[in-house]
Each structure stands twice: as structure tokens, then as C-alpha cells.
């Protein structure tokens, strides 16, 4: 069966510090990978998605970036965090090329920028 791992679960970082959040998927090959952000009490904002190694598409211009160094690894980064980067970050995967397949989410990282 497929599983998705996301870490860390919580993170407190000062403004201006770098960020690296990691997500890995097991049990499937060539998944579509996604990073979402959820502000407190709000909906899901798509940040980045990837359909293959090294292929990253950005939905929202900002000081965040994403990379996919391996087929089932997705990394969210920032060189300098802003207060507005605080939120709940969710990684998700989806079968590629599959009609009507759902997203499968990790348990998220709660990021607080102080």
C-alpha cells in the first residue's frame, strides 16, 4: 500500500531563517506531487506541483521554492522566511495519468514564523 511521510510535524523558525520541508511517498512510482498551504481556519492553497523529477510548476509567486530530486521526494524550501509564511503545509500525491484519482495528503507541518 502507498504511504506518504511528511516532516517535521511542527516547526518554529525566526523571520529571515531558511526553511526545508521534506515529503516522501512509498509504494507507487511517478506520482504527481503537490505542496499546499492552509492558513488558520481557511482553505487549501496550491503552492507547487510536479509531474516528474525536476519538473516543478508554481501556482503562487512568493519566496518559497520546491524541488523534486527523486521520483518520490518533494522538498519545499525558502532562503528567508517571512511572517506571512506561517501556516499548515501539506504535501500530497496523486496517481499520474489516472482518471479521477484522489489526492492523498500527509499529516502536514505546522510552521510558525516568529
Amino acid at each position: 500500500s502507498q504511504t506518504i511521510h511528511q516532516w517535521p510535524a511542527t516547526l518554529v523558525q525566526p523571520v529571515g531563517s531558511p526553511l526545508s520541508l521534506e515529503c516522501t511517498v512509498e509504494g507507487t512510482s511517478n506520482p504527481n506531487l503537490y505542496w499546499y498551504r492552509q492558513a488558520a481556519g481557511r482553505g487549501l492553497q496550491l503552492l507547487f506541483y510536479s509531474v516528474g523529477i525536476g519538473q516543478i510548476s508554481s501556482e503562487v509567486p512568493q519566496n518559497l521554492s520546491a524541488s523534486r530530486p527523486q521520483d518520490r521526494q518533494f522538498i519545499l524550501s525558502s532562503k528567508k522566511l517571512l511572517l506571512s509564511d506561517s501556516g499548515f503545509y501539506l504535501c500530497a500525491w496523486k496517481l499520474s495519468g489516472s482518471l479521477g484519482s484522489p489526492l492523498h495528503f500527509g499529516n502536514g507541518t505546522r510552521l510558525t514564523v516568529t
Partner: protein
Amino acid sequence: QQQVKQSPQSLIVQKGGIPIINCAYENTAFDYFPWYQQFPGKGPALLIAIRPDVSEKKEGRFTISFNKSAKQFSLHIMDSQPGDSATYFCAASYSGGYQKVTFGTGTKLQVIP
């Protein structure tokens, strides 16, 4: 045209009641409509999903009703329980392209004993 509009924003029902959450979309290219359930501190999890060639789908106490002509779909929770208290998101996607999933803004449901 990519939006999915969800209502209400919050909902409180008594145990045993039938909360109904509504969603509407514009893009007729959407061909997959899932609902996700999210508990505090956790990622959303797929609850139930429907395709536009079906008008209703039931899984346990959860039912999706789909009205293709009106471009609306809704979630009904029969015999709601306190354990159903969570945030519910409707979503829509289409098979083409990178299969972007568009989410509604969420409904926070509270079922009181």
C-alpha cells in the same frame, strides 16, 4: 472559472441530524468531484467521490448528490455523530493536464450530543 464555491462556512447540528454542505462549480471540464474530511492537526482524507455521469452516490452514512445541469453537488451526512465533527472540503478536478484539484473553502461541522 476554476473556482469551486462552498457553503455554509460553518454548521452546527444535533446528533442524529442531517447536515448538508453545498458546492457549485463553473468549469464544465471538471469530471471528478471528491469530498475530503479534515480533523484538527491532520491532513484532509478522501471521504467519498462522484463522477458527473452519476446523480447520487452513497457510502455508509455519507451521500453525494450531483446536479450536472445546475453545476452543483452536495454532501449529506445521515444520522450525524459527534465523531463527524470536522472540516469538510469539496473539490473538483479534470483528467487533462496536470490534474489540478480545485478546492472549496471548507465547512466546519460541529455535531453536538
